[in-house]
């Protein structure tokens, strides 16, 4: 690293924007909102991250990839810590990230108040099909290929799709 160049938390955040989620590769760890804080403690750079779901198997890979990017840029002393509180929510996902998800074929999360309740047999609000934009869709299963997604199908274009469920 060029010593003349001042290292700021903002610059590190820009570097982390290159680290993608291994399971939803269209999103970076910044897009997802799982990087909570960057701390510069002298020689040490500390990155505080939080998991999307308790059992998210991608977290270990994400930690390795964050470390790798920073080491490649010349940071020597990289510390990654996990925090659980406050708990991650899809509200932390940026609007830009939601557009990227849709372009990738995954319906982005809607606002959380509408779905995360215990009321039974309600689909909640209509989820828009990322292919044909129809709202005439139905939920197949609240659990999908990863912890953060649900399975849906479009009743118009018949395409099955993933919905990044609100959380």
């Amino acid at each position, binding site marked *: 690293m060029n010593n003349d160049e001042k290292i700021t938390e903002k610059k590190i955040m820009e570097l982390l924007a290159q680290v993608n989620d291994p399971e939803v590769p269209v999103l970076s760890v910044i897009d997802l909102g799982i990087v909570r804080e960057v701390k510069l403690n002298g020689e040490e750079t500390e990155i505080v991250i939080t998991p999307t779901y*308790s*059992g998210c198997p991608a977290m270990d890979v994400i930690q390795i990839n964050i470390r790798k990017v920073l080491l490649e840029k010349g940071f020597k002393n990289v510390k990654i810590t996990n925090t659980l509180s*406050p708990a991650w929510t899809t509200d932390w996902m940026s609007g830009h990230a939601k557009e990227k998800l849709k372009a990738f074929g995954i319906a982005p999360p809607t606002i959380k108040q509408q779905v995360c309740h215990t009321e039974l047999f309600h689909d909640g609000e209509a989820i828009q099909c990322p292919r044909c934009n129809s709202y005439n869709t139905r939920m*197949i299963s609240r*659990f*999908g290929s990863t912890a953060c997604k649900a399975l849906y199908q479009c009743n118009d274009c018949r395409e099955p799709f993933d919905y990044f469920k609100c959380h």
Partner: protein
Amino acid sequence: MTSPLINYTLHLADNALILGHRNSEWTGHGPVLEQDIAISNIALDLIGQARNFYQYAAQLINRSTNQPNTATEDTVAYLRDAHDFKNCLLVEQTNGDWAKTILKQFYFSAYQFYLFQRLRDSKDETLAAIAEKSLKEVTYHLRWSSEWAIRLGDGTEESHARMTNAVDDLWMFAGEMFVAADYEIACANKGEAVDVVLLKSDWLQKVKAIFNEATLPVPQHSWMQSGGKEGRHTEHLGYILAEMQFMQRAYPGSTW
């Protein structure tokens, strides 16, 4: 090297790990693909919760023995024997058919739902944080298992009969969740743990509401089994541990 808080944290972890492991037995064997994925997702959430609790328990153990890095999440999960496990008897019961698996999950999710709602206010910050995080996931589990209990109970003659059998099989293991072990009482007195006795009426109300829709009878008072929280288990736990701990014991030092 043990304290009420360590035992309480291990108890919470063991519950999640053992049920998570049981659910993972369905992976690749679910009745339909979507529900195979659902039960596997729930297994993943529970094992994730277990990891968070085990990591904290390992920290507490190391602090109490003053030997850093001796205990890890792996040693506590994989190198304790059955009598050291503090999970409730309910979670170690065999999966049986889909009806029994659903009912076991429903009983446990309803318990965890009310437990974590209160544990969020624990004076122990780590337990409070894990509870806050996990509650969001448990809400999904409770909704999923409630819907399935209703679908099966109020379904065909066969699904109703299977659910009725499951109620008969599992009811005697439900009571233990609401009888506090010594370490739970000690931690509850300090504001670290939830007094489980307080959860019972909420839980029972939930079960009655769902059973009512599922056209299932709520069992009346009966003898309740207990002992799991103190390490006295049914014969099933040993078999789970034999399978789960094999790798770590055959190849010591493997990590998650």
